């Protein structure tokens, strides 16, 4: 498509052809271009030279260059990635936290340690960081964005070092971090990045606080401990003292001065030698590394006081063992030492007192005791001599009982001196210690004073020995002077004097006891002799008694018996011994007697008395009065022995029975007059009745009523006669029958009516209603009632009143019959005897009435009692069981 081709003159056809040609060329060119761009072309021809240029070669060259470049890029990239990786790993591994920003403060990286410390990642910018924690200055003020080291380093373009920041994390944990930040600048000095690194110093911080607290505590302790604390350096120059140490030194402390200055502190060994400063415990610890414990020393205070110190010192070493000084702890133990000395003295004192006790307890004689005790006293209260004296009041002398002296003494045991005023006894009895400064002021024999002076005794102490208020003697201590006495000597001496006095007294008592024992032995001997004599006497009584006496064992066997008993029974002693007493009794009495003996051996009875029949060896049956008494030897109530006393009462009993009969007759006699009247009365009635009956019989009137009365009266008379007959009759055992006691009483009252009238006695009869029938022997009971009634009438010679009554009793069931007169009464002395046989107050009586009555009542299982008052009357009460 050449320009000249266009400038050619053209016709229409040509024109059209040309357009068509151009279009075709255009299409061809387009297609060619397309082929070119799609790589379908192999070569290009130079339009001028026609020289072809092969396209494939150019491409190969180009590709080769490209590939080389790409290879280089890949290699560099890999290197970069590797170093990046290393860097990141490094950053992540380092033990410090790291924050990295770009040039404008955008936070581009944090490492693992940072996230770990902060408990959060940090993003955003320095001015507006995005994170989960808050930051504070150590004083508690919150950090503003511009306060961050990162921000400051970025802004100021220089490093910021060691800023302490408190982090309060989202999880509540608090951490203290120490932060430094540095800008990173390129070659032209522009800041391209800022890196902040920080470490977690929480633990160090806590340790620091702990350490500070520890120090504060230590300081407080040192300031307040009771021990004096002194710290010196390795040259033993004093660095520090606490208040207690200042107090112990009690003078200005030479702080920081050379060792020699310690001499001014006046420290001494326990024996009083002053310390060389080089030898002081603290010096030795500081210089030689010696640890010294429990060292005792003295310090002299400016005021002259000497104090005891207890010292502990130890070197102070660094970790590598190098000595950098020493510490000393001082204690003022003066009070303690003093107490200890006192205690030791006290202990010794107790020990000695204890020994004295033992000596006093075991010593038999005063001499022996003093010999042991006096040296002990001298040990506790040092003196030239210690002696004990006692007083012989009768001889008016002082006796030296014992002495213990420093030197040979002329004034020895047994020395006697006149007792004079010099001893001031009245003072001594008041248990006071007497101090005599100068012997010569006393009124003592000159030779004595001289002897004492020879022993260098110029003063003395006198301690009274008092036991149970009695002055036993004196304890005297002779000494050169009184100035060197212990402060507690008084206590010691008084205590020892007490012991000594007790010892002396004990010794005396022992002597007395011995005497007493001897006396007692003599007495016993005398008594024994007397007893033997007494026994001999009793033996005689036993042997010679006219009453039979036997000693029985628990089974009633003869152990011993006297001659009288052998005669009563007709057996010899040999025959009787070992046999049982009841075997000699009448067969009818054996059972009763055995029961009684059993009761005795059981302890139910102490003794019993009985009248019983026995059979002699010759076969005679005789009556005996037997009394058996238990002899209680032990606490046990069982019978050990019994004494039997036996008397043959056969004759006595016969005469007594005769007497009873006589009494009965006497009573009958006494009744005679009364009876005559008693019988006469019904007879008169009968006669009257019969007369009346005769008269009215003639008139034809009914006479039965009169006849009945007459019959009754006659029966009454017959009854009276019958009773009289009964009274004279020999008593025989009659059968009991149920009887109306009221009727019986009325009948008896009837019998005595006349006699009562004669005596002017008024009888008041109060029978009990619904009285049961009582089992009794009618005649016998009537005899009792009659007897009591007659006695009552006799007791009222000038008339009076007699109350007669019956009463029912329930426990036990029975009847009381009461006879109460207001007669003369019975003398209380005689009252107990009125039931005894042959006891009477009436001249005409035999004294058997009440005796018989009692027997009869007791035969019925009843009782009879009497109460009486002189001038007021007597009451008899009979009780009979129903």
């Amino acid at each position, binding site marked *: 498509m050449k320009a000249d081709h266009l400038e050619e003159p053209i016709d229409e056809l040509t024109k059209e052809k040309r357009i068509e*040609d151009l279009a*075709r060329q255009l299409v*061809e060119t387009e*297609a*060619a271009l*397309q*082929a*070119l761009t*799609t*790589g*379908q*072309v*192999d*070569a*290009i*021809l130079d*339009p001028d030279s*026609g*020289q*072809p240029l*092969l*396209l*494939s070669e150019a491409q190969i060259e180009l590709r080769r260059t490209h590939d080389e470049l790409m290879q280089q890029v890949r290699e560099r990239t890999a290197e970069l990635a590797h170093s990046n990786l290393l860097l990141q790993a490094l950053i992540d591994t380092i033990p410090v936290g790291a924050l990295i920003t770009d040039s404008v403060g955008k936070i581009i990286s944090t490492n693992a340690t940072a996230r770990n410390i902060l408990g959060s990642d940090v993003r955003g910018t320095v001015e507006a960081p995005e994170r989960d924690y808050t930051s504070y200055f150590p004083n508690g003020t919150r950090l503003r964005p511009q306060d961050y080291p990162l921000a400051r380093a970025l802004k100021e373009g220089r490093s910021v070092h060691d800023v302490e920041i408190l982090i309060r994390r989202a999880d509540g944990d608090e951490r203290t971090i120490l932060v430094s930040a540095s800008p990173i600048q390129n070659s032209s000095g522009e800041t391209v990045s800022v890196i902040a690194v920080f470490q977690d110093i929480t633990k160090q911080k806590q340790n620091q606080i702990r350490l500070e607290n520890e120090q504060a505590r230590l300081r407080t302790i040192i300031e307040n401990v009771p021990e004096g604390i002194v710290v010196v350096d390795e040259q033993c120059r004093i660095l520090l003292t606490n208040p207690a140490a200042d107090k112990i030194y009690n003078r200005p402390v030479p702080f920081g001065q050379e060792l020699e200055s310690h001499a001014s502190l006046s420290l001494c060994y326990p024996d009083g030698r002053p310390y060389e400063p080089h030898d002081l415990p603290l010096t030795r610890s500081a210089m030689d590394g010696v640890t010294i414990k429990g060292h005792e020393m003295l310090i002299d205070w400016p005021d002259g006081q000497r104090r005891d110190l207890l010292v502990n010192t130890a070197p102070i070493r660094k970790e590598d063992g190098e000595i950098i000084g020493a510490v000393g702890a001082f204690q003022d133990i003066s009070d303690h030492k003093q107490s200890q000395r006192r205690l030791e003295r006290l202990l010794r004192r107790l020990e000695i007192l204890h020994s004295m006790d033992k000596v006093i307890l075991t010593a038999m004689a005063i001499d022996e005791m003093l010999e042991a005790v006096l040296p002990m006293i001298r040990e506790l209260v040092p003196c030239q001599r210690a002696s004990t004296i006692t007083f012989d009041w009768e001889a008016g002398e002082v006796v030296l009982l014992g002495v213990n002296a420093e030197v040979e003494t002329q004034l020895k045991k047994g020395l006697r001196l006149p007792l004079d005023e010099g001893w001031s006894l009245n003072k001594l009895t008041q248990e006071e210690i007497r101090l005599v400064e100068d012997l010569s002021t006393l009124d003592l024999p000159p030779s004595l004073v001289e002897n004492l002076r020879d022993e260098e005794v110029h003063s003395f102490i006198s301690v009274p020995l008092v036991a149970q208020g009695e002055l036993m003697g004196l304890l005297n201590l002779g000494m050169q002077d009184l100035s060197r006495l212990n402060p507690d000597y008084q206590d010691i001496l008084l205590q020892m004097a007490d012991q000594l006095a007790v010892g002396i007294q004990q010794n005396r008592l022992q002597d007395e006891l011995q005497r007493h024992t001897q006396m007692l032995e003599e007495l016993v001997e005398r008594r024994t002799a007397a007893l033997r004599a007494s026994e001999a006497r009793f033996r005689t009584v036993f042997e010679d008694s006219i009453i039979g006496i036997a000693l029985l064992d628990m089974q009633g066997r003869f152990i011993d018996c006297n001659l009288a008993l052998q005669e009563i029974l007709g057996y010899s002693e040999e025959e009787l011994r070992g046999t049982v007493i009841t075997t000699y009794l009448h067969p009818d009495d054996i059972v009763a007697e055995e029961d009684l003996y059993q009761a005795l051996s059981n302890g139910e009875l102490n003794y019993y008395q009985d009248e019983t029949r026995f059979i002699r060896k010759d076969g005679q049956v005789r009556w005996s009065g037997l009394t058996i008494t238990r002899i209680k030897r032990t606490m046990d109530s069982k019978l050990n022995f019994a004494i039997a006393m036996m008397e043959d009462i056969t004759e006595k009993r016969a005469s007594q029975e005769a007497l009873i009969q006589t009494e009965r007759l006497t009573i009958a006699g006494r009744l005679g007059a009364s009876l005559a009247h008693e019988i006469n009365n019904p007879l008169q009635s009968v006669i009257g009745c019969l007369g009346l009956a005769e008269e009215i019989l003639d008139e034809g009137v009914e006479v039965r009523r009169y006849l009945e009365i007459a019959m009754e009266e006659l029966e009454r008379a017959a009854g009276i006669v019958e009773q009289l007959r009964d009274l004279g009759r020999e008593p025989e055992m009659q059968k009991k029958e149920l009887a109306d006691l009221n009727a019986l009483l009325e009948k008896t009252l009837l019998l005595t009516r006349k006699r009562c009238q004669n005596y002017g006695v008024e009888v008041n009869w109060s029978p009990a209603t619904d009285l049961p029938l009582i089992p009794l022997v009618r005649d016998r009971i009537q005899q009792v009632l009659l007897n009591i009634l007659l006695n009552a009438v006799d007791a009222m010679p000038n008339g009076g009143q007699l109350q007669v009554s019956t009463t029912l009793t329930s426990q036990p069931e029975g009847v009381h019959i009461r006879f109460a007169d207001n007669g003369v009464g019975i003398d209380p002395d005689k009252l107990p005897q009125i039931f005894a046989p042959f006891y009477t107050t009436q001249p005409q009586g035999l004294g058997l009435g009440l005796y018989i009555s009692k027997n009869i009542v007791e035969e019925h299982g009843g009782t009879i009692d009497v109460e009486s008052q002189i001038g007021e009357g007597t009451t008899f009460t009979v009780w009979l069981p129903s």
Partner: protein
Amino acid sequence: MKSANSLSSQKNSHTSEVLNLRLYVAGKSPNSVHALNNLRAICQELLADDSWQLEVVDIFSNPKRALEDKILVTPTLLKLGTPDVRIVGDLSQRERVLAALDLVRYEE
């Protein structure tokens, strides 16, 4: 073109004049080889052997002829005629080649 259109659509029709083709190649360069192969394949497929004629000109051995035919790049196919038709490329785009050579009518 009208004459071409009047040609029979049959392969072996020899009614029209012979198709005269000239292919400029750069030795055995790949695109040149592709272009020759593609052209032969099309012609052998669609035309009877006597109805087409191909001259292959290597520019390395005969650059003057390229300058005469105003050839600037290889491969370039020249359909001799009035006017000449030129196709640049490896002739892999069959439709375009058929269109340029006016052989569409032989396409089945």
